[in-house]
């Protein structure tokens, strides 16, 4: 409970956030979800500051005590640090005194942190360790007996790591990370990170669309061959004969896996430089492509030797940033070399990625003012919303599952009378 009643738009609404899902059910997604400022604020409270685990970084980014990196959990600025004992710490990058930014650089190494405004100093866990003029100065002023600096710190997050991928949450109600990730994603992370990885770079990407449009897109089998013509145009055989989607966390996580096509001995691309699309995959278990969406802010993409993990940072209903960390295997020089070529496929300029940004921005531009209360249609492969697993690509059931889970976490009223209500 906040110490005061804030002016809160949500307060004006019912507990359901004022939104009742379309009667047609989970195969309809109201455009309002992508345009409403109230929903944007509610997501920050219920998803990013709620009982969910948010991706913060990779352990390999901060190997040494004092190494830190900064990010955002929803709208909240967060610092991830490794402390003296090697433990992972995370806290809100906002001074406990008057709210100034304390950690100013994107990443680095520090014994502790000092706020520039009044020089309060903090240890690596974000606890106050020094307060200028605490006991006064020249016998005057300073803090009174009631003030105990040990009671003050930058707000900490719970931190947990699995296979070197670090998550944090503001909520004590979030389940243990292992349960949150679920068995399939746990295994995939363990398998992928069984070998040492090295970070090869970062990429910032601002997309003028609601973050959920891209999060939905990332699990959308349907668009892959239709929107991304690169493979087809260059006669690149897509290794998609066996595909699978596995859901978890009320359907909001999604583990996509596409296995290698053993018939494809070598790539016969019409590319002058075929290395761009070469599929000598470095992945275990004969996996060609895997895309792992971990709700609400994480997207892991694994293709060939080019890997990336993205943090979603909503900035407004119609704008978000995706920050990529590119990485590959550190113990294999071929991977490093290959991923330089393969990365041309991904990111804001990628051969099979640029269209995703284009299409979600163009959707956003076409649904201003909530688009007259319209909705999108997610009805392929029936109206089922409760699959734990789909073994083919010809379905939107994994999208419906996501929306149903999202609506529950947001506290929206289910469709009245509709299917899957």
């Amino acid at each position: 409970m906040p110490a005061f009643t804030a002016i809160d738009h949500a307060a004006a609404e019912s507990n359901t956030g004022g939104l009742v899902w379309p009667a047609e059910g989970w195969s309809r997604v109201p455009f309002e979800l992508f345009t409403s400022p109230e929903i944007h604020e509610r997501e920050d409270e219920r998803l990013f500051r709620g009982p969910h685990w948010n991706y913060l970084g990779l352990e390999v980014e901060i190997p040494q005590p004092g190494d830190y990196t900064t990010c955002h959990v929803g709208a909240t600025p967060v610092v991830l640090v490794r402390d003296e004992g090697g433990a992972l710490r995370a806290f809100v990058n906002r001074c406990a005194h008057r709210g100034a930014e304390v950690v100013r650089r994107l990443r680095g190494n520090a014994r502790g942190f000092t706020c520039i405004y009044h020089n309060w100093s903090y240890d690596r866990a974000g606890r106050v360790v020094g307060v200028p003029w605490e006991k006064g100065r020249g016998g005057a002023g300073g803090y009174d007996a009631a003030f105990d600096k040990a009671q003050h710190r930058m707000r900490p997050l719970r931190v947990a790591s699995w296979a070197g991928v670090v998550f944090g949450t503001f909520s004590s109600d979030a389940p243990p990370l292992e349960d949150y990730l679920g068995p399939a994603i746990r295994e995939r992370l363990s398998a992928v990170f069984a070998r040492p990885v090295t970070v090869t770079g970062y990429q910032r990407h601002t997309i003028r669309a609601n973050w959920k449009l891209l999060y939905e897109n990332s699990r959308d089998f349907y668009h892959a061959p239709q929107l991304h013509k690169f493979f087809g145009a260059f006669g690149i055989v897509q290794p998609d004969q066996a595909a699978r989607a596995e859901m978890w966390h009320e359907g909001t996580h999604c583990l996509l896996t596409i296995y290698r096509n053993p018939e494809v001995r070598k790539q016969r691309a019409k590319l002058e430089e075929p290395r761009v699309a070469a599929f000598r995959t470095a992945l275990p278990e004969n996996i060609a492509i895997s895309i792992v969406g971990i709700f609400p802010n994480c997207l892991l993409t694994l293709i060939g030797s080019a890997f990336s993990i993205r943090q979603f940072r909503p900035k407004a209903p119609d704008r978000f940033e995706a920050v990529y960390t590119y990485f590959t295997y550190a113990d294999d020089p071929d991977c490093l070399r290959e991923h330089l070529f393969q990365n041309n496929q991904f990111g804001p300029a990628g051969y099979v990625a640029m269209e995703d940004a284009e299409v979600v921005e163009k959707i956003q531009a076409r649904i201003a003012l909530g688009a007259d209360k319209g909705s999108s249609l997610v009805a392929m492969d029936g109206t089922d919303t409760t699959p734990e697993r789909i073994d083919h690509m010809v379905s939107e059931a994994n999208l419906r599952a996501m929306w149903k889970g999202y609506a529950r976490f947001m506290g929206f009223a289910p469709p009245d009378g509709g299917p899957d209500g």
Partner: protein
Amino acid sequence: MSGIGPGVDRDALFAIEQMNKAYARCLDDDRLEDWPDFFLEDGRYLIQSRENRDAGLYGYILYFENRAMMRDRVTSLRVANYYNLHTDRHLIANVDIVGAADGVYDARANYAVIQTDAEGRSELFSAGEYVDRIVFVEGAPKFAERLVLLDTSNIVGLLAVPL
């Protein structure tokens, strides 16, 4: 204060300035097919953010090791990719030679690209620096390497056509 004084090869600088003008016209006119011709056959075209460069990381947004890869890019943009309809406008300033040895010139220039959408709204799309290695072939300058060093490491929307 490199680049000042009698030291600089004015003819080479003039040729390099002219090449940059032609390079800008080529892209602003959407004559992408001509773009690889500004490079040597084994010339490199790289786009990298200052953030990655300063951190000693690769993090190339585009990594092309030869002209074949540039031709592939143009082919893909023409036949395969969907991207935002727009017009680019290059402002290239401060073109200068900052070093020269064995017929290889190190050149730098500042650029800003203003992008205009289909409905005629213009915005600053990207700003940064060209860091070039240039050689002359039959009197004409060619890029052995053009590194586009982005100040604007935060790409808004997408980056389809070369900078």
